[in-house]
Structures are given as C-alpha cells and as structure tokens.
C-alpha cells in the first residue's frame, strides 16, 4: 500500500492578538494509505480541526510538511473535499444547488453534472429533496447534503470535521453506518476527525490518538475488526477492548481539562 497522504513533523502555532504564541500541533507524523479510513481522536482543544485545515490547505504548517501523492499541499484543491459541521450549508440554496456549489465555482457545471448530482442525492438517501432548502431538513438530512456536496466534486480524499457531532445519539449511529456504506461503494481515502472514541473505532482502519495542546501523536492503533461492520459490532468485547485502550491514553488529559482528577 502506498501513502496517499503524509504528514511529516507538522507543527502549527498561531500568534494571538496580544502577541502570545499558541502552539496547536507539534511534530505530528502519520500517513494515510489510498482507500484507507483513518480517524483522529483527542480531547477538545488538541488541535484536531487545525490538523484537518492543514490537510485541506486552508492553513499552512509552521514547520514540517503535508504531502499528497508525495507533493506538498499548496492550498485547497480539487483532489480533496472537506465535510464541515452542520452549519456550513448555504441557507439560500436548495439541496441540489448546495451539492452543485463545488462544481459551479470550479466551472464544471453542465447537464451531465446536474444529472450526476441528482443520482448522488438518491445514493445518499435524499431523492425527492432536491428542491428543499436546508432549513426544511432534519439534522441527519442536512449532514447527508453536506456529504453529497463534498462527494459531488469527486475528490480523492474526503476530509471530515466532526460531521456528526451535533446529531442526536440515534441519528449519529445511523449516519455512521450510512457513511460506511457510502465509503464502501466509493472507496475514497478518508481522514475523519472526532472526539468520540467509539465512532472513530467503528468507522476506521486505523485510529490516530492526539494528545492535548500542543497536539502530538500519542498512539496509532489498527482496528482489525472485520468489514463490513454492522452497528452491533460496538457491543462486542473486541470493540470494548479497543475503546478502553484509546480511553486510557487520553483519560488523564480529559480529566485535567475538566478539572476532575482520577
């Protein structure tokens, strides 16, 4: 397997208005193979979102490099698409027009693209909702739209920033299974950010554990649960053992951050 995406000693620091320097990431190194599903978990404030923005090219690393197919990333590109949290749909656009946004700004809009987008919407379970506006949709449906918008530009790498964080627990479970179905059919390389350990393990081939600020790679574990995975795999002992391992790695930091020592 070849590395599709490589992070080599990536550090990122920000200068605040008052002149202080905040270090978000320090020397992060890991790679993602082509077609692989990798999740990054960590306590809040560990720089997970910064990491994803570096890979998307919205931010540039302060030190180190992010490589895609061996070439450094210079900015947002057609080969990657970012799936945002709930509020990133354009409220004045219909579901279909939201999905077509990426193709539109890239000048790839045509009859063929519209037809493909319609097909994509049916594929993610939004057939018949093309003309609906985001405010008319449920949280789960909005997130499907969000996913379809990213898939519409047919990226090689899908970057997902806690896409299910604001959904209720049951909807989240269904969406996780849906995501695996879609990933299985399209075989994209996925880098998935979450603070939910069970979500990371259920979805991923490998899980990268990030320690708290400055974020550093604390652990990388391979999830050897067989695929396709049904939702009830979450209640098996093997799954529980993996959750335990990740939890132990970040427990102290989570406790520190909320002020409840062990």
């Amino acid at each position, binding site marked *: 397997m070849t590395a599709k995406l490589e992070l080599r000693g990536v550090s990122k620091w920000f200068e605040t208005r008052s002149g202080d320097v905040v270090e978000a990431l320090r020397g992060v190194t890991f790679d993602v193979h082509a077609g692989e599903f990798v999740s990054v978990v960590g306590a809040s404030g560990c720089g997970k979102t910064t990491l994803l923005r570096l890979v998307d090219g919205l931010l540039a690393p302060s030190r180190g490099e992010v490589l895609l197919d061996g070439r450094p990333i210079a900015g947002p*590109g057609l080969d990657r698409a970012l799936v945002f*949290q709930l*509020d990133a749909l354009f409220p004045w656009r219909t579901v279909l027009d939201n999905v077509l946004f990426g193709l539109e700004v890239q000048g790839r809009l045509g009859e063929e693209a519209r037809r493909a987008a319609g097909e994509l919407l049916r594929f993610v379970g939004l057939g018949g909702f093309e003309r609906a506006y985001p*405010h008319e949709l449920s949280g789960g449906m909005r997130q499907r739209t969000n996913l379809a918008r990213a898939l519409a530009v047919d990226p090689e790498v899908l970057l997902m920033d806690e896409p299910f964080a604001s959904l209720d627990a049951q909807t989240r479970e269904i969406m996780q299974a849906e995501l695996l179905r879609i990933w299985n059919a399209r075989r994209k390389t996925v880098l998935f950010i979450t603070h939910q350990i069970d979500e990371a393990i259920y979805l991923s081939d490998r899980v990268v554990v990030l320690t708290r600020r400055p974020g550093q790679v604390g652990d990388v574990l391979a999830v050897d649960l067989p695929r396709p995975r049904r939702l009830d795999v979450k209640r098996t002992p093997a799954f529980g053992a993996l959750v335990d391992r990740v939890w132990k790695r970040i427990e102290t930091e989570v406790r520190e951050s909320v002020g409840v020592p062990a």
Partner: protein
Amino acid sequence: MTVRSVEVELGVGAALPRARRRGFFERHQSRIRALGSIVVVFALWELIGRFVITNRLFFVPLSSVFASAGDLWARGELQLHVRTSFLEFALGFGAAALAGIALGAAMAVRRALRDYLDPWVAFLYATPTVALAPLFILWFKLGIESKVAVILLVSIFPILLNTLTGIEGTDRHLIEAARSFGARPMQIFAKVMLPSALPVIVTGLRLGLARGLVGVVVAELFGAKAGLGYLILYSAQTFDMAALFAGVLILALAGVVSSEALKALERRLAPWRFVEVER
C-alpha cells in the same frame, strides 16, 4: 377471545381526532382587526370633522379630503404633483440604493477604504441631514437636482451601513466552505457574502425608503414649483386643509405600499429567516 378482539379494534379504530379546519375569520383574524381599526378611525375622522371641529381652518372631514383630491385630479394638478415627487424620489432613492450598496460592499471587503470613510459616514449619519436642504437649494437651484441630492443624502446611510454589517456578518464557516471548494475571492463575494447579506441589505433599503420620503417633503418645502411637499406647503399657506390632508395621505399610502413591497421581497429572498415555529 372476544374481549381481546374488542381491545384490538379499539386500538386500531381509535383514529386521531381530525384537526379542526379553521374558519375564514380565524385564519384572517389579524387582517380583519387591522381593517376594522382603519374603518373606525376613518369614521371618527369624518364625524369629528363634521360635528366637533367645524372650523375648516383647523380640520376637515375625510370626505372633503377625497373631494379635494378628486378636484385636483380633474384639474390635472394632482398628477403633476405625484409625478414630480415620484421622479425626484425614484432618482434620489435609486442613486442612494446603488451608491449605498456599492460603497458599503467596498468598505466591507477593503479595510483601508473603510478606515478612510468611517469618520465621514459616522459624521454625516449623525448630522440631521435635512438641515442641509436649504444649502442644496442654493447649490443646485430650484430644479430637480437639489431634491434628488437631499433624498440621496438622507436615504443612503441606512443602506450603506446595513450592506456593510450584512457582508461583515457573513458566517465565516460558509466562507471557509467556499474556500475549501476552491472559490476565488470574487466568487466568495458574489456567491456567499452577497446572498448572505441580501436580507439585511433589503432591511436597509426599507429604512432608507422611509427617510427618503421625509426627504421629498423637506426638499420641496424649501423651494419647489410642484410636488406633494409643495402641495402641502402651498395648501397650508392658503388654509386649504382638504388639499393638505390629500397630500399627506398620498405620501403615507406610498410609504406603506413600498415598505410592504420590500417586506415581501425580504420574505422571498430569505425564506429560512421566516420559518414557522412548530406548534
């Protein structure tokens, strides 16, 4: 067995009570009340004018106002006044809308321009600009230019400021999403910032419109040969209360109609802002 089947039947057969269809009066309650209120006040106006304040130098019944308007219309004067004021307003407010939106947008995306213009916008917005009307009459003479200038000056600021805050208030997640898809700065402006700000801009237009109507009257008070403001001034000087009220009523009607039209436009442009609350 029989008992169980009865239970099942009840369970299935007990349909939800059908929602009662609300009657015509219930559905249009607010409108009917508003209409009723107008009718009552107009009736009071008529009665007071006829029986309470009978001195025609102070007050006239509504019927006299309508009669006076019909009279002015028959002589072709009313059309002239309405046409004159409408033209002044259309030019002044149109220019204010174009310039206000353009300047506000430019200030929102160009930091330096904003820094240079900020003090002047604050200064002129705080000044009661109608006070400058006599000056404009001096500069631009009695023609249409002076009125257009007054209307432009009084109505531009709410439009400019709303455009500025509307564009600045664009959700940065939406901008980032657009950037992520490779949108260029001009595309981000046209496809994200502008549509996001549009409802706020329309609100600015509505505020500017109200001020602009005041501007029409004030500008014409300081020297004009025609127009609704002129009609009001001239009628007051000749103690023609009926014609005075006719001018006022027409201006009020124009204000209500155009303001409602812009409200409807707001609803059309931003349906997501008017989501009905679930009951």
